[in-house]
């Protein structure tokens, strides 16, 4: 059973705000939500992590509703260089051998000029 579900792909235009939603209906009490960005021919890059409500850093914002069954990664004013695959992961941040680190299929974001 997949831990997360994301749209397979999205298109947007430069300068727009992009919101990518991830569903995680079976999220556990100790689970955090983490997002990665991966450019072609590179390893994934950690973007942001949160547990509840809203987290913001210099790259993105992460919105998590009270029930935590979904989350939304928000990228403000995207540029062509934001074209990448974005992965949403959920899991316990402490080393727990019962937890499986699972990268889902990710969302392929394509920014158009």
């Amino acid at each position: 059973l997949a831990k997360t579900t994301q749209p397979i792909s999205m298109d947007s235009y430069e300068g727009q705000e992009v919101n990518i939603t991830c569903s995680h209906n079976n999220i556990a009490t100790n689970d955090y939500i983490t997002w990665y960005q991966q450019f072609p021919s590179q390893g994934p890059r950690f973007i942001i992590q949160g547990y509840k409500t809203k987290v913001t850093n210099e790259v993105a914002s992460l919105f998590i509703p009270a029930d935590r069954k979904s989350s939304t990664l928000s990228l403000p004013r995207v540029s062509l260089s934001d074209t990448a695959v974005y992965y949403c992961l959920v899991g316990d941040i402490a080393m727990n051998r019962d937890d499986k680190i699972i990268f889902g299929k990710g969302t392929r974001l394509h920014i158009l000029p």
Partner: protein
Amino acid sequence: SAVISQKPSRDICQRGTSLTIQCQVDSQVTMMFWYRQQPGQSLTLIATANQGSEATYESGFVIDKFPISRPNLTFSTLTVSNMSPEDSSIYLCSVAENPKLYEQYFGPGTRLTVT
């Protein structure tokens, strides 16, 4: 964040041979991991490299096929043994600190082609 390098960056190997991939980190880290990513696909965790003890393998991966070493807190190797074309993939190492298991930092990857 840690800086991670991998060697080789790419290689073309013949079936039946073995390749050892090195992962070097510029600082001591608690956890190191090895992943596989087939072109256009997502990442799959192979194993957790444990310093001073045997690696912990995920379902579907075995030590005889993917032996792993981790002699210290900054270095690990992954060997892909008795290769077949199905092993053609990108192999990535990553590092993290406990309790930041999901805040991982990845190396650039090793692109392996088996002919």
